[in-house]
């Protein structure tokens, strides 16, 4: 059973229990018609172009990006790009993400991180909460502030 980390701590993953499905990107075309978007999560590989997914944004409630190793930082850039090109749904990092990366993940656009029970035991909730994004200590927020795009 996976653990979901959010800004308010650990949660059991209830996505599938609530009837949600995870669908691989490569199978998505075949299944999509029969699925309700609000029950559909899209699993993408971490070498996919975010721009190739724009047509699917309205068909899914969640996109899940894998971290095969915490040292593989591609997921951060994919998340950032998805947000930049207008994806507003739920965004989940999945796999080997460590507590020390939680702030990075959140700042890049992830809403939550899905980790194994083993990792959750080794790095309990308080270690993740200690690494909430600290906007007041972000040089990037100071130097390259985001334009308000959604006011229009």
């Amino acid at each position, binding site marked *: 059973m996976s653990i979901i980390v959010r800004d308010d701590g650990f949660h059991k993953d209830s996505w599938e229990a609530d009837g949600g499905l995870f669908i691989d990107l490569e199978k998505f075309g075949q299944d999509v018609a029969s699925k309700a978007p609000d029950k559909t999560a899209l699993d993408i590989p971490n070498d996919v172009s975010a721009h190739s997914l724009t047509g699917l944004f309205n068909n899914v409630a969640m996109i899940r990006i894998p971290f095969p190793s915490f040292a593989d930082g591609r997921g951060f850039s994919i998340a950032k790009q998805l947000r930049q090109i207008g994806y507003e749904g739920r965004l989940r990092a999945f796999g080997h993400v460590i507590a020390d990366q939680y702030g990075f993940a959140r700042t890049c656009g992830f809403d939550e991180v899905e980790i194994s029970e083993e990792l959750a035991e080794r790095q309990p909730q308080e270690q993740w909460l200690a690494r909430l994004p600290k906007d007041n200590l972000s040089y990037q927020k100071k130097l390259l502030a*985001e334009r308000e795009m959604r006011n229009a």
Partner: protein
Amino acid sequence: MYEYNQFDHDFVRNRVREFRAQVERRLDGSLTEDEFKPLRLMNGLYLQLHAYMLRVAVPYGTLNSRQMNQLAYISEKWDKGYGHFTTRQNIQYNWPKLKDVPDILDALADVEMHAIQTSGNCVRNVTADHFAGAAADEIEDPRPTAELLRQWSMDHPEFQFLPRKFKIAITGAPNDRAVTKAHDIGLRMVRNENDEPGYEVIVGGGLGRTPMVGKVARDFLPKADLLPYVEAILQVYNLNGRRDNKFKARIKILVHETGIETLREMIEEVFETQKALHIPPSEEMVKAIEAQFQPPEFDAGPVDEEKLAAAIESDPLFKSFMETNVHEHFDPNHAIVTISLKPIGGTPGDATADQMRVMANLAEAYAYDELRVSHEQNIILPHVRRDDLPEVFERLREAGLATANVGLITDMIACPGMDYCALATARSIPVAQEISNAFEDIKAQHDIGPLKIKISGCINACGHHHVGHIGILGLDKAGVESYQITLGGDGTETATIGERAGPGFSYEEIVPAIQRIVERYVEIREGVDETFLETYRRVGAEPFKNALYPETV
């Protein structure tokens, strides 16, 4: 020079707290060794051959006396009383204990310093021309840009886990002293036809096992576009750089395999997005940084030229020092002094705590409280009044710091090699020391003239051997050290990768081999003014190969 504001202070202290917690979490098992490794690396902590090594950032090589004194203090309190200045304008301590490192980082924060991103697969300490803000040939001081990049790269959420390390260098002068063409990104400050300031952006340079001269991504990037453009390069690299093979993971390989034209288009596409979505740093913010790099108010009183001339006349050592270690300043009353950390037979780049204090005191008394670390592992006093030069020399001489060899054959770069480094395949420092001893006569060195020898103790090329006029690469051949020689390398604006001369030499043979190259050069040069590199470019490798391998002639 740049002074921390409250934000900078808070950022660095928070980072120390985080690292302190990470050390504790490693000890209690929350972090595995694999997980801890990149975290300690991005805080400057390596595990070397015999001990931990802490690499402290000296952003763009600029220091004041208080900081230099603190580096001396740290070396005595937590290390063995010396430090090693590196080719990345940093300082390394070779013997810290893991438990002390958070305290060392706090001591650094006390003087507005840190060790953040001096290692790891992230954007490393940004380097710049070591004569920045002082050189007569400078168009514009590169340090405000370097500081802007330092801030932008600090803890960048997207770019802490890149395929590999990422180094940026910047120069504001036409004479490239920052080796910009051998960095992941090299920036040269230029002006366009309307005299607007901007950058030439070079990507994909690097040394290591696949040396490459960087390629121009943009001829002219307006100054205000810098951060969105660099952000674009990094995003393209993070997504597309190879992660299947550590040795092919640098951006130079991506440039090579993708082609600069395609990559340029990819960068431009992301750049447009970045530019549309982000507000670049405000003019006030940029101006506030620039204001901190204004030159000091120079003493405009007339220079006692007679005093200086008399000192040169009466002391041949000082005369030699003036010839090699003193460079032209943009202010005619002042000069730039390079303090050589290459005493004859010494370890290139090492300075004791006492020597650091002498240099700090000299900076305070004679150099408007400024010091620089050069990538050639020397220390610079950037602004010294010309009639103070005799006193400065005298004080340096007393401290064993007056070696008049800057730019000469014994002013070598050498990586730590097998004496310290876990990656090394051969010794570097002892080779440098023996070459230094073989050419110890200062007069003979001055006669040989400008010659850069650079020594690496493994294929990763930390000693920059590829861009040495004479490069030496130490390898391990079936358990025996073997030294390969490259010739004709050049790290300046005319950057060239040196060519391999032929089969390697044993440890015992390498110094005589270097001597044969130098003897041949002296024989065949067209007058004493033709430098080694000029001779090499005129005649090619052949005469030197014949000198190196006489048995094959």
